[in-house]
């Protein structure tokens, strides 16, 4: 019993330490980004990496979810005889909720895991140490471009997701069920206001930062993780952790933002 409590306590402490470390990394990088030299090219390279890696999956999931929503809403709205609001229903749920969340989850699975594994492998193969020894700060050189790229890419991907998802809803409503084209599009334009777009944008910026930060920190601090794990086993474990934790963080944050903003 006491052993169990001890274990629980040390686990809690380790988690707190990890959270502290992660936000510390964010602060250090934010500070270092204000110092010269300013390098744009590595950020663009990482944006290409994160964007290109996730674009296909974003488009496919966007279209699918748009179509599912179209179908679902059409069936429900038909019962109340208000199919006319299909456009606004689809657009609002996509822009306010599903777009940012789904984009973030897809980026976690596709690019976040890759980022974490890459940094973890660099850590265990002493590449991070080698950077240190060349007097190149590894947090600025390795992590900062990924973090900035994540913060910038996720909103862009979110935009793509929104467009194709609304397109998917359009396909179901207008093409499949023969709803009037004008009522889908006009309903959407009339009901979506600037504050909805702003909410979605804010969410995707925050999610982008959150997931890249968690995935980077997990891989980068592999050598400090609980069991001091090394080797392939350690990399695979932190990668799994990173995916799980960042997904949960996204969902929880979505709830928090929703609660605060409404």
């Amino acid at each position, binding site marked *: 019993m006491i052993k169990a409590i001890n274990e629980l306590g040390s686990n809690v402490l380790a988690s707190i330490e990890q959270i502290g470390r992660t936000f510390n990394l964010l602060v250090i990088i934010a500070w270092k980004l204000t110092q010269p030299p300013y390098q744009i090219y590595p950020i663009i390279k990482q944006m290409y990496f994160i964007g290109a890696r996730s674009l296909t999956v974003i488009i496919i999931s966007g279209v699918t979810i748009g179509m599912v929503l179209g179908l679902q809403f059409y069936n429900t709205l038909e019962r109340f005889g208000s199919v006319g609001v299909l456009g606004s229903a689809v657009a609002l749920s996509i822009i306010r909720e599903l777009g940012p969340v789904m984009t973030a989850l897809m980026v976690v699975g596709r690019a976040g895991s890759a980022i974490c594994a890459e940094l973890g492998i660099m850590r265990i*193969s*002493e*590449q991070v*140490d*080698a950077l240190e*020894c*060349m*007097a*190149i700060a590894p947090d600025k050189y390795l992590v900062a471009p990924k973090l900035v790229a994540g913060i910038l890419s996720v909103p862009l991907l979110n935009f793509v997701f929104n467009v194709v998802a609304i397109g998917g809803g359009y396909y179901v409503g207008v093409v499949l069920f023969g709803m009037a084209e004008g009522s889908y599009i006009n309903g959407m334009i009339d009901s979506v206001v600037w504050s909805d777009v702003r909410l979605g944008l804010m969410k995707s910026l925050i999610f982008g930062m959150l997931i890249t930060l968690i995935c980077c920190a997990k891989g980068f601090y592999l050598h400090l993780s609980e069991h001091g794990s090394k080797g392939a086993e350690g990399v695979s474990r932190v990668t799994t952790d990173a995916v799980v934790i960042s997904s949960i963080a996204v969902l929880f944050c979505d709830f928090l933002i929703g609660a605060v903003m409404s």
Partner: protein
Amino acid sequence: MDTATTNAIEIRDLVVDFGSRRILENISFDIHQGEIMVIMGGSGAGKSTLLRCLLGLKAPTSGHIHMLGTDICHATKTDLYKMREKMGVAFQGGALFTSMSVAENIQLPLREHTNLDENTIQIMTRIKLDMVNMLPHENLMPSELSGGMTKRAALARAIIMDPKLLFFDEPSAGLDPITSAELDELIIKLKKSMKMTIVVVTHELESVFAIADRIAILGDRELIQIGTPHEIKASCDKRVIDLLNRTPRESIVDSDAHLKRLTRNAQS
């Protein structure tokens, strides 16, 4: 200043723990400017760990390390980085960046720390690659290299900035005798022409006595002996003699007794 007696590195009462395990205890010795210091010791004796402390990568539990006048255990990040621009390091496993070709790996310090133009960078890269006999392989990726090639590429990267201090962790392990001998010559040449202070961790007895000005032998967590090759050869310490004569551990010679020890728990 008399270069023969100036210390490039001073290690004082160094104690290093990994968790509750003590790896190094009360290590104190000096490394003189412009000498080649070879660190020897059995596998797991803590040679790489000592090197990591010298590089400022691992904070010792207690003790001091002064390097070219900087206390690297208590220096600020900025001072440490300034110090590191004067150091070159080749890690045991190479630690080449896997996303870059050999040439790009070697150029990285130049690109980050100097404003040289592209042409100069290319020429300097070629010179260093040629020194380690890697010129034909400059465009390969690290994943395409053999173990020995990786070592040589890492070496080229370590000397690209013409550092004052050079650290090699097992440079010659896994190299063929000819390349290994060439490397020994290169190390001696670097010392003579560039006045580098060089710290080498190695097991290869032949190359130890070919290059070393002084030798430090680690074992049982402590420094067993330090001295010139001549002094080491004349040592009376059994552990040193065993290491030099490649005497196998007793367990392997007296296999019956060892077998008993290994099966002790199984029988009871």
